[in-house]
């Protein structure tokens, strides 16, 4: 599993997106899928910075991936705060955004753009987010 470790700050979001874009291309995914992956990992990493670490530069994000038969499996590992994704209500994307709180799109994008999204929280072992993206003809 190729691995890259980035200090958890917003400047590094671009590097994280690029790291996974290259990985996705090498896994044979098309440019639409590459873009979806960039959006999903951006939201995931931004959440780690914002919510798990509660701010910039309070830890690192370990980024790894695995090329699988169907496409790519992405793993983001952090040592911040855990949370319960099941308690997070999905956004109401049919309501007027001007009257919504400007929050809650990140997890939603990850779920919409990726084929499989799983969190696991392991105490001192840290938090692991696994997302998979499949090629056009896989499911």
């Amino acid at each position, binding site marked *: 599993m190729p691995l890259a470790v980035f200090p958890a700050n917003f400047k590094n979001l671009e590097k994280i*997106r690029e790291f996974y874009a290259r990985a996705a291309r090498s896994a044979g995914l098309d440019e639409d899928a590459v873009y979806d992956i960039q*959006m999903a990992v951006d939201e995931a990493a*931004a959440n780690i910075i914002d919510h798990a670490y509660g701010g910039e530069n309070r830890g690192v994000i370990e980024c790894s991936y695995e090329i699988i038969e169907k496409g790519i499996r992405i793993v983001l590992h952090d040592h911040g705060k855990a949370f319960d994704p099941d308690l997070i209500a999905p956004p*109401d994307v049919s309501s007027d*955004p*001007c009257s919504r709180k400007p929050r809650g799109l990140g997890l939603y994008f990850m779920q919409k753009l990726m084929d499989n999204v799983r969190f696991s929280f392991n105490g001192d072992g840290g938090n692991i987010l696994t997302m998979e993206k499949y090629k056009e003809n896989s499911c």
Partner: protein
Amino acid sequence: MEIKTTPLKRCMLLEVAGRIDSSTAPQLSDIFNEITEGGEFHIVFNMSKVEFISSAGLWVMVTAQKKCKRFNRGEVYLAEVPKRIYEALDLAGFIPYYKVYDSAAEAVGSF
């Protein structure tokens, strides 16, 4: 991210090139604030050179739209929105809240 503003007779033309993520969204927010603090609430946001936008950037756009539409004093029109940026706006449910034009010229000419 690069930002260009062009004051026109009846609106501000705003062009942004590059990536709008949590790192650069504050700059976009600043420029919208600068425009509205200058008293202009009619804005054409030409997105043709926006390569990436995350939810952080999308929310900045919503905040700007909200501020501009207040008291019926103006509006943010979108122009030349690249396919992937459009899809992100659509997924977020934001498309119904913007007039979207094929060209910046048409957007400017609709104020």
